[in-house]
């Protein structure tokens, strides 16, 4: 198991390197003087020169690239062109927000999708099953930003039961932390529940039709045990794959959702970086997202390795 993790992690290194390189050369695509682009047309030559000097923008692209790579190796993601703040520090304060969002949403999608999937698998062909399948198709089509705005309206404006915006740190107040995340998590989770439900439904149904479930049924073992011990266990690998795949999609969704709920996460950093022409911040966020994707895929691989009986030793 450990060796699989190592091999996977090693395979991800060149991938991340390409992502980082591409993100770096993003700034080479700026037409003309980057300093003028960042500071705008009204800036003076002196201001521009100052920026050039501070960030070494006058050096050759290769030169700049090599020095950013060297910095990266020592854990330095560079500094913001606008505030001169360390990008690493900026992102490390934003990371917990996005991480909370993504983890909670993953848990919600996995739990709700699987539970409904089991429920429908036990009632295959019934009306509830068909309605759930249609609903799964429908929720997948709902953009997270639309449902987010709708949720703000319903729960924060109309009924005033939950805060519309803002974030409270977990160590400050776990209760408020959770409250500040309820609506964003719902907005992010709704669409992925559809595909996870469909996958869980078909995987559990297939397991329930298998001979080994008939074997335990033939022993008079109660339905609940048939489903939870044998059905769910055998359906776990495809469900985990679906959850992982949707978690990656959910990561992307945090950008719009953080914006709507005013959560100071990576997505908000990305957007303010984009609007402020702050290329180093954008580069940093892209790299963090790429690492996030690698970690999700690694986690899925490891879980499947644990779940697949043939990969295990007796």
């Amino acid at each position: 198991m450990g060796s699989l993790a190592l091999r996977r992690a090693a395979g991800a290194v060149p991938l991340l390197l390409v992502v980082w390189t591409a993100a770096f050369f993003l700034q080479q695509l700026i037409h003309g003087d980057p300093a003028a682009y960042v500071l705008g047309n009204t800036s003076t030559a002196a201001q521009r020169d100052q920026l050039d000097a501070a960030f070494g923008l006058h050096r050759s692209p290769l030169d700049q690239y090599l020095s950013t790579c060297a910095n990266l190796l020592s854990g330095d993601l560079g500094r913001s062109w606008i505030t001169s703040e360390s990008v690493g520090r900026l992102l490390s304060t934003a990371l917990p927000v996005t991480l909370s969002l993504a983890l909670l949403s993953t848990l919600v999608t996995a739990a709700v999708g699987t539970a409904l999937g089991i429920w429908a698998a036990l009632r295959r062909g019934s009306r509830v099953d068909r309605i759930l399948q249609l609903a799964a198709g429908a929720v997948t089509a709902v953009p997270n930003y639309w449902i987010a705005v709708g949720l703000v309206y319903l729960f924060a404006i109309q009924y005033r039961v939950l805060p519309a915006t803002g974030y409270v740190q977990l160590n400050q107040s776990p209760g408020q932390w959770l409250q500040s995340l309820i609506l964003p998590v719902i907005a992010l989770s709704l669409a992925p529940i559809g595909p996870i439900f469909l996958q869980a439904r078909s995987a559990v149904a297939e397991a329930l039709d298998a001979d080994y479930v008939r074997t335990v049924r033939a022993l008079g073992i109660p339905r609940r045990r048939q489903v939870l011990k044998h059905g769910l266990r055998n359906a776990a690998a495809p469900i985990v794959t679906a959850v992982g795949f949707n978690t990656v999609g959910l990561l992307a969704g945090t950008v719009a959702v953080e914006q709507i709920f005013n959560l100071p996460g990576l997505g908000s950093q990305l957007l303010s970086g984009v609007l402020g022409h702050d290329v180093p911040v954008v580069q940093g966020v892209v790299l963090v997202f790429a690492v996030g994707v690698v970690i999700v895929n690694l986690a899925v691989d490891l879980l499947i390795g644990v779940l697949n009986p043939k990969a295990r030793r007796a």
Partner: protein
Amino acid sequence: MSTVVHHADSPVGPAARAGRALATSPLTLTAVAWLVLVVLTSVFADQLAPFDPLTQNLTELLKPPSATHWLGTDSLGRDVLSRLMHGGDTLLWGAAEATAIAVALGLPAGLLSGYRGGIADAVISWLVDLTFAVPAFVVLVALAVIYPQNTAVMMAVLGVLGAGAATRLVRNSTRTVRDELFIDAARVSGLPLRTILFRHVLPTVVAPVIMLAATSMAICVIVLSSLSFLGLGGSPEAPSWGQMIYEASQNITVDSWLLVPPGAVLILTVIAFNLIANTVRDALPGGPTPRPVRHRRTVLAETAAQRPDADPQTLLGVHGLVVEFPSGPVVDGVTFAVRKGEILGLVGESGSGKTVTALAIPGLLPIDERITAGSVRFAGEELAGTTERRLSRVRGRGVAYIAQEPMAALDPCYTVGNQLRAALRHFGATRRAAAARTGDLLREVGISDPDRVMRCRPHQISGGIAQRVAIALALTGDPALLIADEPTTALDVTVQAAILDLFRNVVATGERALVLVSHDIGVVADVCDRVAVMYAGQIVEQGETDSVLGAPRHPYTRALLRSMPSLDTAGRLPVIPGSVPAPDAWPEGCRFAARCALATDACKKGPIPLMDVSGPSPRTTRCVRGHDLAPEPGR
């Protein structure tokens, strides 16, 4: 035999099938109609829209829907319907462009990678991995730092990133066809690669690509509208659905209605694309088979239920059993009894209904098959038509079932020991007693190293051991009746003999009975006390094994015996010519008539009843010429 094959080898190609599926589903037709409507209104928005989408009217701010403004007006007094009609244009074009790029890149790359394999495949697969390295939406947002509002760049990048998924799909489809025979045949006949790809591979990937294109449209519409929502997608002047949702969010405290029209149009459009994708996918080979129909359980008011059990030694009495599939009956009036200490063989070719009969006894039929008439009395209790709850009390302790494929019958995720202990615990053993009994049980079924086997998962043991484990599992509840379905078919000959010995031991106590289902009359001859020969859903001959097999009174039994391997012939004689008629092709007269050498006109007149041909022991046969089939000399 309980599975039905659904047009596995239908001559219609997948693309044609997908097309037909699209045309016949009302839901999908609605989806197509909606998309046509959206596209047409977007294209002809200038002509169709009642107002200019940009004209502000400060006297008509945030008006609800009315006769002039069907969907109301926004915060600048602009007509919502007109803005909606103009707002789909860029979005749909953008999605279509990105999708076209994805397919244009992914199709050749996937064909090459899937067909060629090797280095090309490795390189392309790595590039595909790269497209999944960062979520496409994040890439597009990041790009906006350099190219704000530049839709052309966004489309291109979205298309290139989407090409990853397209390549993967086409590659995998190509892989599957490549290995198929007709491709090999085409390759040896010296056709150039291009011809093979275009003529043979391309047609099979058309349907998957259509599905992918529809999915891609759905995803692109969501991604691009999200960018508009964030103010990053295209000119802020031109109306777009995403931007309308943004404007609605800015006015949400005063007017929530504005959120509805763009949201509804957007969601319906995405649903429509997804529906089309699903319809095409379901029509692909390997798509879901028609869903099973669930019947209500009929409560059987059979007089047989009141019939006193003739003999206190009778453990199981099956009387007039009828099992129906949604298409009709497959077991048609089967009657037999099993006494304590007895082994009864149910023998017949596949399609005879023997497995369905076996499954029906403990109520283990799949949900689309059910008992519609007759009675199954076990130890004085009626099992046909009873509740799952009552059945589950009989199962395991009263009747145990051993399935055909020992390997598939054990859960691959748990060790043998775990499964045995769980069963023993279910039957009331304490944790410690279960642990102790597990080893004993495995030894009883002839496993010499129970401690090792206990720690194995099913894939780590041989078929023979797996069958012994399955038998041990069936014995955990100390059942009075065992039903074993083809228990030796999957095993090689030496193991077969050992398993049959084991069955003999299991009933040797005299308190247990066994119903052994087999197509192999040799196996039946070896261990069964009595035999019931089944054909096309009926029992055609029944009696003591020696007398039935020694002097068959039914031509089918005879034919089965002749097809049995014997010592003086080299190997197995040809099987009986022809095959068992399917239930919908059962003739009115004798069901064996088409394959029977002795058939006369009388055989085809009407249903053949069971005839009593008892000698020293009870015998029945379902043949009008049963009396003519004189005992063969020299038995």
